[in-house]
């Protein structure tokens, strides 16, 4: 029970990390594909996953049964971790007696290291379950020599092998132990054959995976590198396994002696099981550095040995005590040994930091009318976005009907795509807002060039399915790398028709792993009179490459009709490695072009309107087309001086003002709203103003700090979120006293060595139901003095309750500076909520800014009716108080609360 509770608490609070997505990335495949994909590291969103397929197959079924929530996918690991505890009890009881098993299982239940790996979507807890079970079943089989036990042992050992490559060392240890027993004639003759049969059965059962195993080992093999296992590393790892408890380690050491005295054979088995996997990193030459988790056998192993030691000590100390009292005494000792782990649990549960999940939440909240999301590479960010924002955005994986799309291009902050200006920053991510208006078919004139370093592909290609540019690799890559993809361009014939031969140049790149097994990916270059009648001009495979690049020149025979379609068919193959087009060029010499796309065609893809000077579009906003020297263009340019056109065609420029600024001002200029309203977002200082939108008056129901955004749904539900930034000082909170900014830092402290505080108020006609505050405090542990940062809440202004705090004392170090989250649901919704940050003095700090965002979220009861249809248009938005900015969402505002870390 304790093991289950400890492993389940706040399971959803820490977001998944990349390695867990690696596991899930393969688990989502169909079952046969999981096998083939993992055995050859076949194409996947996620790269290397050096694990056999058992966990992936289990997770596949879990995903099919439940869905994609973080808690749900972590549950199998929790179950395996919890089951390992009774498995260790069984092993301990078998080898050293019931009380030893009880103490050992209690030590494992409280082990922080084991708790951690029981909460990760990685195979370690599954491996330990089968590893410990196989030891128990082996010892039982040796003892009772029943066929059933030998079969169960073989099954458990096979399952361990299919869980993790670490099981190889464990199985060798068990095999050597059995061989040693047989050689030293300590094994009765009747057991030799079943043991040999069991081990053979295990090896036979593993044979199907052997090619995959060999492939994986080759992939990581590096003859000149060792794994770096040193004595110092081993000592540090042992410290991690025991949460730094030297007493625990000493007990485990004594446990070896006690164990030898009680059951020498069993102890030899245990020691082999511990030491042989530990010796393997010494023998292996791989590019992977050793990690404590590769020695994870020590976690249950040390618990078992320490359990034996405790049992021995209890036996000595409690000669005259009844057995229950002795067991209780031992349990107290277990708690003592586990104390460092138990004491770390509160911090462990609350450990939290800024993650991609937070950035994606910000992006979704600020997306306004961007309806599609794209990625600079269709890899990590795509995986995160699919997981955290399912259904919030469309993607660019298919061309569909080529309708105009407002796109947020998401990049890592350190990647700058050319020509897209300044991005919107959301934590570690940068978002570029762009409009993609497809202008295919293209005019066959001169030389057409396509490279894949920009987003032009989406404007020019006529058709694509599961293919798009990888801006980082500058190549045409698969959107989902395990599926085939296509990309086709269309060209309209000039007046005199196409020339006899259209020359095509393209460059392709081969990427492959260090393994000799060649990738079986291929690319076909296709052409034809239309995208429906394409024939293969040439298929390129790995065999065509002499280096990493291949330049090809092909002649396309004169197409019969008025159109030429050219494209690439990409086949990902099944083995690690890819072939991707890097550039495409087509020469149409000596022809007189005809315009290929007309405003009428464009009108089918985008809502094109006539610009009315002085009117701001809002809601489901259209684009505007201008002739190059039209007077209206000058007016438009003066309104949006820096806005680039989304399409430049002969005699036609198309602009999308929503890309410049999807928000309108209230009070502001005349507003044109199209369609129904799904929600209203309001930004700016809120103090109960009434915003008038045509005939609809929307009273803002609250006073909120600057930096707040209020989201109103037609049903009246309201959400408020505020991001505070102290890089320019404390701003204007409701109240502040003795506060000052740390020079040059986005953080606040006290102005002197006396305390200070700052209070934020949410005063709302729509009662506040819940509040969540995410903040980053820091305090210096001064000898003899407590330094603190405290967050308190009050709903009556008089009585404050501490929600969350950081206190430092005596450490002589700056402590904290990691995220704290306080989330309170009010039993009685309140029209007043005060949030007060208290700081002890200038040795206490409260951080903000992109790296340490300080956020306040509030949930409000319905109080305001939002109009669904703003019929009276155009109109001039008004505010009877301070000016605000607004955004009218044509679609319902997305529900994003599941992205808030729930501490």
């Amino acid at each position, binding site marked *: 029970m304790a093991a289950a509770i400890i492993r389940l608490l706040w399971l959803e609070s820490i977001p998944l990390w990349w390695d867990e997505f690696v596991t899930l990335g393969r688990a989502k495949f169909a079952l046969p594909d999981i096998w083939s994909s993992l055995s050859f590291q076949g194409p996947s969103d996620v790269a290397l996953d050096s694990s056999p397929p058992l966990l992936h197959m289990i997770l596949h079924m879990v995903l099919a049964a439940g869905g994609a929530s973080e808690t749900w996918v972590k549950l199998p690991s929790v179950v395996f971790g919890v089951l390992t505890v009774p498995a260790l009890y069984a092993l301990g009881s078998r080898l050293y007696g019931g009380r030893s098993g009880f103490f050992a299982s209690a030590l494992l239940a409280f082990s922080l290291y084991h708790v951690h790996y029981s909460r990760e979507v990685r195979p370690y807890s599954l491996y330990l379950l089968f590893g410990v079970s196989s030891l128990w079943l082996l010892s039982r089989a040796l003892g009772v020599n029943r066929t059933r036990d030998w079969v169960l042992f073989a099954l458990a050992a096979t399952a361990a092998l299919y869980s993790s490559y670490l099981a190889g060392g464990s199985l060798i240890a068990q095999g050597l132990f059995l061989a040693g027993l047989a050689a030293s004639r300590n094994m009765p003759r009747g057991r030799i054959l079943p043991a040999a049969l069991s081990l053979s059965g295990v090896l036979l059962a593993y044979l199907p995976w052997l090619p995959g195993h060999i492939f994986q080992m080759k992939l990581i093999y590096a003859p000149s590198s060792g794994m770096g296992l040193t004595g110092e590393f081993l000592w540090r790892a042992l410290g991690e396994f025991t949460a730094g408890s030297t007493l625990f380690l000493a007990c485990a050491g004594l446990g070896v002696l006690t164990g030898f005295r009680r059951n020498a054979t069993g102890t030899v088995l245990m020691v082999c099981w511990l030491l042989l996997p530990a010796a393997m990193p010494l023998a292996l030459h791989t590019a992977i550095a050793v990690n404590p988790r590769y020695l994870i056998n020590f976690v249950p192993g040390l618990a078992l040995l320490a359990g034996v030691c405790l049992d021995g000590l209890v036996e000595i100390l409690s000669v005259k005590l009844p057995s229950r009292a002795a067991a209780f005494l031992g349990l107290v000792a277990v708690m003592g040994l586990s104390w460092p782990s138990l004491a770390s649990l509160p911090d462990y549960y609350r450990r939290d930091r800024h993650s991609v999940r937070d950035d994606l939440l910000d992006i979704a909240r600020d997306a306004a009318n961007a309806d599609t999301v794209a990625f600079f590479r269709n890899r990590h960010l795509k995986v995160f976005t699919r997981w955290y924002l399912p259904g919030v955005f469309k993607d660019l994986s298919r061309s569909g009907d080529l309708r105009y799309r407002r796109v947020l291009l998401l990049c890592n902050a350190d990647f700058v795509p050319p020509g897209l200006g300044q991005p919107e920053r959301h934590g570690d991510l940068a978002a570029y807002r762009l409009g993609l208006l497809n202008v295919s078919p293209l005019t066959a004139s001169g030389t057409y060039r396509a490279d894949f370093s920009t987003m032009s592909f989406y404007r020019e290609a006529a058709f694509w399915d599961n293919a798009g540019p990888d801006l980082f690799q500058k190549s045409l890559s698969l959107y989902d790398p395990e599926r085939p993809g296509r990309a086709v361009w269309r060209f309209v014939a000039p007046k005199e028709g196409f020339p006899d031969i259209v020359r095509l140049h393209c460059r392709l790149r081969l990427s492959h792993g260090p393994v000799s097994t060649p990738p079986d990916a291929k690319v076909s270059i296709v052409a034809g009179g239309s995208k429906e009648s394409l024939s293969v001009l040439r298929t390129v495979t790995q065999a065509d490459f002499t280096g990493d690049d291949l330049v090809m020149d092909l002649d396309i025979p004169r197409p019969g009709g008025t159109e030429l379609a050219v494209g690439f068919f990409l086949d990902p193959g099944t083995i690690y490695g890819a072939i991707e087009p890097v550039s495409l060029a087509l020469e149409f010499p000596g022809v007189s072009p005809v315009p290929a796309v007309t405003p009428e065609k464009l009108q089918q893809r985008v809502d094109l309107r006539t610009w009315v000077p002085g009117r701001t579009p809002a809601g489901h906003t259209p684009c505007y087309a201008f002739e190059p020297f039209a007077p209206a263009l000058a007016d438009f340019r003066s309104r949006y001086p820096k806005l680039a056109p989304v399409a430049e065609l002969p005699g036609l420029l198309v602009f999308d003002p929503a890309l410049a600024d999807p928000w309108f001002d209230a009070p502001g200029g005349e507003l044109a709203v199209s369609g129904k309203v799904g929600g209203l977002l309001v930004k700016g200082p809120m103090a109960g103003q009434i915003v008038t939108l045509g005939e609809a008056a929307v009273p803002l129901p609250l006073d909120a700090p600057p930096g707040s955004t209020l989201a109103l749904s037609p049903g009246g539900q309201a959400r408020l979120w505020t991001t505070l930034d102290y890089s320019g000082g404390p701003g204007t909170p409701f*109240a502040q006293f003795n506060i000052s900014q740390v020079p040059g830092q986005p953080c606040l402290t006290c102005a002197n060595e006396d305390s200070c505080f700052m209070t934020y108020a949410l005063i709302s006609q729509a009662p506040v139901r819940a509040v969540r505050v995410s903040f980053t405090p820091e305090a210096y542990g001064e000898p003899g003095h407590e330094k603190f940062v405290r967050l308190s809440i009050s709903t*009556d*202004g008089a009585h404050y309750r*501490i929600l969350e705090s950081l206190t430092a004392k005596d450490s002589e170090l700056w402590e904290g500076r990691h995220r704290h989250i306080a989330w309170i649901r009010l039993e009685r919704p309140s029209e007043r909520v005060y949030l007060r940050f208290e700081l002890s003095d200038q040795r206490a700090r409260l951080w903000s800014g992109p790296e340490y965002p300080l956020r306040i979220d509030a949930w409000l009861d319905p109080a305001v009716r939002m109009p669904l249809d703003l019929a009276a248009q155009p109109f001039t938005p008004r505010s009877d108080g301070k000016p605000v900015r607004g955004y009218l969402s044509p679609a319902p505002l997305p529900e994003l609360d599941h992205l808030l870390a729930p501490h």
Partner: protein
Amino acid sequence: MDNIHDTTPASGVLSQVSREPARSGGPGWSCFPAACEDPKRPSHAGFSHPCAFSAGLAGSVLLAVALLACLSAARPTVLLAATPADLFAKGCRYLTGQGVPHDATQASRLFLEAAQAGEPQAQYQLGVMFSVGLGLPKDNLWGYFWLDRACSGSGLPEDALRLARARKDALLRELTPDQKRRLGIRE
């Protein structure tokens, strides 16, 4: 809200406001420039208006009006905007819940603004509120500081002055040596 600390209100804070009689014949409003300049006193870099208002007849008239406003909170009076006395009077209304919701945090915010502008009654109230943690974090140092400010001027009614001195003396006994050092108090 559930489980909020049961912070005992200052004995007499709420009643004190309404019991204090309006002074006839106002004191000279000396504000607290001397206190501001006293190097032994804690610095107050967080204050935006240390000595915004000064002295005299106008001040005493305003004080009287402010106190009247406290007593006649049922019909709030529109006063000259943003004078310390206005702020104090408004703070009193929030503190006592007369015509507005009971709200010690609102009151403390107004008292802070008024006290920083030199309003002695507000300084006294702040001293009490800091010392008991009513609407403000409980902090003996800042409690003593504001009571000392209130006492050091001559704008406090006699009854309030007596109470302020008593509270100040009581607080002095609770101050740690370090707090005394920071307040510039020699033992």
